[in-house]
Structures are given as C-alpha cells and as structure tokens.
C-alpha cells in the first residue's frame, strides 16, 4: 500500500511535466487547429539555455527566469518568421514544417552542445519527505507546475491581453473587427507555449538528464495527455497529464517488463480514446451539414 502511494505520487510529479507540455500543445492547437510536434524539442533547447546559464555560474532561479523570457521571445520569433508563411497552407504541410523545426532543433542542439548526456541540477535537492513518501524534488516539480497553471488561468481569465488572445483564437474575423491584432495574438500564444515548455524542460531535466533526445518520449506522452483530456480543454490537458504520469508509473511497476512500458501505456490511452473519442473533457464536435 505504501509502495502504491509512493508510485502514485512520483507519477504525479512526472505527470505534472507532461501536463505542462500538454498545456503548451493545447494553447497552440486552440489558435491554429494543429499540433506543434516541435514543442518538445523547443523545450529541450530552452533547457540547454538554462544549463548554459547555470554552468556560467548564474544562480538557478535567475537562470530560470532568464530562460523563460528568452524562450518566450524565441517562440514569438519562430511564429513571426517561420510559421507565418504557411499560415494558410494545408494542415499536413504545416505538420511537415513542424517536423522540419523538430529536426532542426534536435540537430542544432547536438551540434552545439554535443550528444553527451549532461547532469542538470535540481533546485529542490533530493531529500525524502513525509516518511519517504515523496522526494523534495518531486514535490517541487508539482508545486512549480501548479504555480504556472494558476498564472496562466489568471492571465486568460482576468487580463485584457488574455481576453484578446482567446477572442483571436475563437473567432479571428470578429476579433479583427473589434481591433485585435490577430497575427500578433498568435505570436504571443507561441511565445507563451514556448515559455511553458521551457518550464517543463527545466523541471524534467534533473530526472531524465539533459541530452538532445530527452524530449521525444515526453512529447508523445504530452500529446497523449492533451488528447486524453480533450484537446479543446486546457484543464483537461492538465488532468490528462497527471493521469498519464500515474498510469505510466503504475503500469511500469506492477504489470509488465519495462521494455513494453511505453507500448502498454499508449495502448491503455488508445483504448480510452476509442471508447471516448473526444477525450475525457473535450466537447464532441457537432457539425452542421
């Protein structure tokens, strides 16, 4: 029983990371109707930026803030320069652009930082808490994720800019008519997604260690989490992330050999989706003919 609780809690910690990245995916999906497959690699690149700061002797939390800010600007820049030209291209062409971005980030990171696996410091230490139930780093990850979520909630719910972004995503034409600059709202959305991704990367790096391929598995889980929660629902993405994290941990501990862990975790998610095709919290799309 104690082991079960321990596994659930540590699953929640990884789940919190999946939730953050899933949230980044949902944010871009709401505005563009497509999934940014490069989100994970962008987060990986951000994490390397944080690592460079830490290596240069910058205190952890200052490096954290700097990285998030740089990632935000990077995200805005990518939207303006690289995504804009394919804004009205077919969805599959956009997917190919995302795949292009993915390999560019991955390869460039390998080129600049080499493929050697690096250790990444955890700001929360690794002391066991509450009678060995959870480690301080796991608790820290969950805490930071919750703070990010709360900030995003407040931003989209109570600030004029947040309103404008939601309007631009929901109804671009009408938003433009009331004077919202839809293109820039999209760019800010990309920036925010990149910033949230950076937080996810920095949080997961002490566990997974830092290397250019660290995010491929995380992205898949985040994608699964976003869809499990219902891609149209940010809250659902968070719940989805936590569910996927716990599920992954329990399946790996109790059911099957680790070689098939990923396969079985995905199979479970697929079964849920086949039963409930628009996700746990998504609204089924009703089409008018």
């Amino acid at each position, binding site marked *: 029983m104690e082991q079960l609780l321990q596994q659930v809690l540590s699953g929640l910690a990884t789940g919190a990371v999946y939730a953050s990245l899933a949230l980044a995916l949902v944010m871009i999906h709401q505005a563009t109707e497509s999934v940014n497959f490069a989100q994970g690699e962008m987060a990986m690149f951000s994490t390397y930026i944080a690592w460079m700061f830490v290596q240069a002797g910058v205190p952890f939390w200052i490096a954290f803030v700097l990285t998030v800010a740089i990632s935000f600007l990077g995200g805005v820049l990518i939207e303006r320069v690289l995504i804009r030209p394919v804004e009205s291209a077919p969805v599959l062409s956009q997917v190919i*652009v995302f*795949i*292009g971005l993915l390999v560019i980030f991955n*390869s460039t990171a390998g080129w600049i930082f080499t493929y050697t696996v690096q250790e990444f410091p955890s700001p929360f230490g690794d002391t066991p808490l509450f009678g060995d139930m959870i480690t301080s780093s796991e608790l820290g990850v969950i805490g930071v994720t919750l703070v990010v979520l709360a900030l995003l909630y407040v931003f989209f719910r109570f600030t004029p800019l947040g309103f404008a972004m939601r309007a631009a995503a929901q109804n671009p034409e009408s938003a433009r008519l009331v004077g919202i600059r839809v293109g820039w709202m999209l760019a800010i959305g990309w920036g925010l997604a990149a910033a949230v991704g950076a937080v996810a990367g920095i949080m997961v790096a002490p566990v997974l260690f830092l290397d250019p391929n660290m995010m491929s598995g995380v992205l898949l889980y985040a994608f699964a989490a976003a*869809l499990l929660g219902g891609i149209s629902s940010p809250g659902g993405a968070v719940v989805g992330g936590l569910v996927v994290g716990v599920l992954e941990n329990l399946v790996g501990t109790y059911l099957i050999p680790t070689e*098939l862990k990923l*396969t079985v975790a995905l199979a479970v998610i*697929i079964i849920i989706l086949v039963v409930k*095709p628009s996700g746990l919290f998504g609204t089924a799309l009703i089409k008018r003919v």
Partner: protein
Amino acid sequence: MVETSETASASLAGSRTAGLSAAGWRRLGVLAAIVAAVILPWLVSDYRTFQFTLAMIYAVALLGLNLLTGYNGQISLGHGAFFAIGGYTAAILIHRWGVPYYLTIPPAGLLSFVIGVLFGLPALRLEGLYLALVTLSMAVATPQFLKYFDSWSGGSQGIILTKPAAPAFFPVGTDRWLYYLSLAVLILAFWAGRNLLRSRTGRALIAIRDHPISATAMGVNTALYKTTAFGVSALLTGIAGALAALATAFVAPDSFSPFLSISFIVGSVVGGIATISGAVFGGIFIQFVPNIANDISDAAPWAIYGLFLLGFMYLMPKGIAGTLGEGLRRLASARAASAEAARDPAQ
C-alpha cells in the same frame, strides 16, 4: 457548366493545333520516366542503382500512404509499422522455412492487408489528431515489439539474409535484378492504384474524405470503404517492406524506428499528398535528400534536412507533384488560349 465545356473544347482544339493537352503531357511524362528508369542502371554505379532501388521501394510504400491519407483523409504517422510487418514476414519466411524470396512478397502483402483492416476498425472511431496519435504510437511501439518477441524476430540483432541472385534467363547482376524487380512492382502498383482511384471505389474514397456525411447520405458504406482503404494502404506498404528486406538483405528493429514513419509522411507531403506521381518524387526525396544534407554539413545534417523541408513547404505547399500538375494545366490552357486567339484574330 458552360465555362467548363468551353475550356474543354478549347483544350481539345489546342491539342490539335498547338501541341498537347495536360493529359497528353502527363502521358508523355510517364512514358519518358519509364524509359529513363529502364536505362538508368546501365548509366550509374551499382551503389547508385541500389539507392534508386530503395527510392522506388519507398515510392510503393508512399503510394499506400497517399491512398489512405491523401485520398481517404485518414492520417497515418505509423506506416513504418506496416513496412516492418512486410519486411519481417519476408525475412522470417526465408530464414525459417527457406521459402524462395519471390514467393515471400504476396504473403507479406496479404498479412499487412489483414492487419491493416484490423487496425482500420478502431480507426473508424478516430479522426484527425486522434488518429495521428494512435498511428504515431504504433510507430513507437514497433521496435519495442520486435525486440521483445526475439524468438521470432531475432531480437535487436535482427535477421540477416542473402541478396537474391538474378535468374538465369535475365543475367544482369544482383543489384540490377533487384532494381528491375522493384521497378516492375512499382509499375504494377501504380497501374493498380490509378485504376482503383478512377473506379467507383476511388470516387467513394474521395467523397468520404471531402464530405463524409454527404457520402453516407448518398449510400456510400463509409465504414467498409475506410477499412478497405486502410487494408489496401497497408498492403502496398507491406509489399514495399518485403522488397526492402530483400534489397538490403537485413531486417532489424532499429530500421523501423518512428523516424521511418515520419519520413514516410514527409515524403508523401513533399511529393504531393493527394497525387499518384507524388509518391515517386517523395521516394526520391526521402532516399536522397538526407545524403545531400550530409554532404552539405557533417556536423548538423538533420538541421540542413529540416531547412529543406521548410523550403519545400514554403515554395510548394501542395508538394512537388501538386505544383507540377498546376504548372502543366496552366501551360496547356495558355497554349490552348493562344491557339484560339490565332484562329480567331477578331476576338
């Protein structure tokens, strides 16, 4: 309606007076491509011949993906799995039971078809991104599965085969024989694919992609056609997988990584997703562009590959075949228009 018939008669007149119609140009292009493909292995080295063999094999696989994703609108990011099924079927049949290599291609296709149909059933409930996730998961699971069932698959070591020798009646050497074998399969697959798409079935597939509800209302059995599309698509990709196993004389889990599936969708879209000829351009792209990228930069070849992808999508968002087709149509109608003007100067 009036406009269309006018353009049609104009292009007819054009074909009589000022060269060929768009369809005529296309037919000429296909003929030239076949002739060039037959001559090619005598002009280049054995290694290049092998590379072109692989490009053609990829083209067959991409044709399968185009059928499913381009014409039927069901996205698959996991076609590497069917490629693996074909490849391993061929390899296991040869390695375990000593089946002659040419007899392994039909069962490889058949097994892929069956698994494709079975996979198409749950896929009926999923659309768009959800289907993308499920198929991507299939791509991720493939190497894990192959490694896990190692008594059949040879584990991570894979199965090593010998390259089939050319038959006595056609003594051209191993590489050229594999090339012509793949070319024959390619031509057969494309001929069958074209006929399929021009038939009642093809129209049903496209109708389901463009408007599923109207298609159902007109009596198209959506579920039947969608699962069939999955099956036929898997069949073509499975045949390509078997050919690839013969050509490389080797199968291993790591040759069927998720990256292979991603390459397939890249090749499909860059070549032209809802076209038949696009599969050939796509096959050439995924076979040769990584090498070119490697020649340009040793340090970060995939960054160069990524730039190629961005460049192609900016310049040709509809893919190579889509852009070429548009160009041909424009050329033909421009010629027709000038012929019209020449015949009737008063206009």
